[in-house]
């Protein structure tokens, strides 16, 4: 599945790195590196990570599901 993190919004809480460590990893103390193409086997972990993100910076497109209702764009406009 495809995903993108709005790294303007990301504050390095690292919840995603705990919940889906195969997809999200902290690099240094605050930088987040992630795989923009997560394996299908990671679907539930990615969903939990996206849900748990305190600043809701993770946008995921799940195959075979209607696009998530992301009404306010991940534009960094807070």
């Amino acid at each position, binding site marked *: *599945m*495809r*995903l*993108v993190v*709005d*790294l*303007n919004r*990301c*504050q*390095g809480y690292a919840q995603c790195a705990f919940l889906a460590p195969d997809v999200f*990893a902290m*690099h*240094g*103390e*605050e*930088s*987040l*590196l*992630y*795989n*923009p*193409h997560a394996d299908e086997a990671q679907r539930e972990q990615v969903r939990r990570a996206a849900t748990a993100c305190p600043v809701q910076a993770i*946008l*995921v*497109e799940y195959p075979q599901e*209607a*696009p*998530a209702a*992301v*009404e306010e*764009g*991940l*534009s*960094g*406009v*807070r």
Partner: protein
Amino acid sequence: MSGDHALEWLRREGRIVIVGASLAGLRAAETLRKEGFAGSLTLIGDEPHEPYDRPPLSKQVLLGHASADHTELPRRRGLDAQWRLGVAATGLDMAARRVRLADGDEVEYDRLLITTGVRARPWPHPAEAELDGVFVLRTRDDAARLHRRLAASPRRVLVIGAGFTGSEIASACRERGLPVTVAERGAAPLVGALGGVIGQVAAELQRAHGVDLRCGIMVTGLEGDSAGRLRRAHLSDGTTLDTDVAVVSLGATRNTEWLAGSGVGAGPRGIACDAGCRAFDIRGIVTDDIFVAGDVARSPHAIFGYQFLSLEHWGNAVAQAETAAHNMISSSSERRPHLWVPAFWSSQFGVNIKSVGVPSLGEEVIVAQGSLADHRFTGVYGYQGRVIAAVSFDQTKWLEFYQRQIETAAPFPPEYSSVDRRPEGLRPVPADFPDPSLPTHGPSVTVSGYSPTDQRITFTPARA
């Protein structure tokens, strides 16, 4: 037909064409559908790929944590659009409202959005740029090629230019254990974006991670062997460097050539538009059916003295695309200005660098929190007695506060006390940006002698 009816018709069955199928084009298309546009939607892109994300290309992809072929952007919704990918737009007829394509086809529009972005500035010497081992990094194909070469363990990588992309490439190379030389003509890495004070911290970071950083140096030539493979670089201090990979990271050029002669106010500095994203024509009159967003746009920003800003920022592309799309299908009273506060991030040498505002407007900088020596701090930039920007190294959490300071034109230097304020940060110091009135490119050439036959030209490579 009254204006209201025309707008209703447009929203119901009009034709919108978006030239540029990357981040801004995609997010604009989604916004149009979200706001109820039901007409025909066409996206035209010169690359054969559907919209993909670029920030990972200089980080995760070079490190091998992600594949260059799999950075497609997630969609927010279905688009019901026609995609013309792998075919560049080559011309625009404003009067007939038609876009010409490289394959000879023409596409008619009622509203046009231009999101053609930028491309990597190539190495200026074409024959040298063709050498095997000379790279740029902008597209996913560039990233795939560079990643393959790095994975083959070159003896040394030369990064030409220490802006954000060049610095991130150097960081990835060091993390892969590759010897890296960075040649930067300025006094420090990131100096154009963040100034010399912060640039010195970036220089320390590079050297602490084993980068052979050479500032005040230009690469004057790239030399190949008989098989056309890069083997050596010539530097402006007269030395040479043996290297088999050179990554040219000299910034970007705006993709506006296809608009030459169209009448749109487009040139090397981008496409001028109003704060509502409507393009200016060459007479300085704003158009009502051509909109611009993303890296290719230059628009006046109210918070920054109505200066025309060109921002090659991921967040700007998204926010401006959303505003442009909204305005394209709204009446004048419902239109919104693009008021996004500039923000960007970079990840290099394990440090998270983030910024809000426009640091390059800053006259002075103060270390409001943390310490430069620790490489963990928040620097606040002042311009004419107000806060104009802030940058953080591994201190993201404070930036939102400074964004509010910028938006409210808070006084500079800051009058409040803050957490982790150190004695060294009590006074503002000059931010030390390069003087924009001085040429930064090219050598100094002096001519001596009087008669044409006596004249001698002396060529002095530029120094920072």
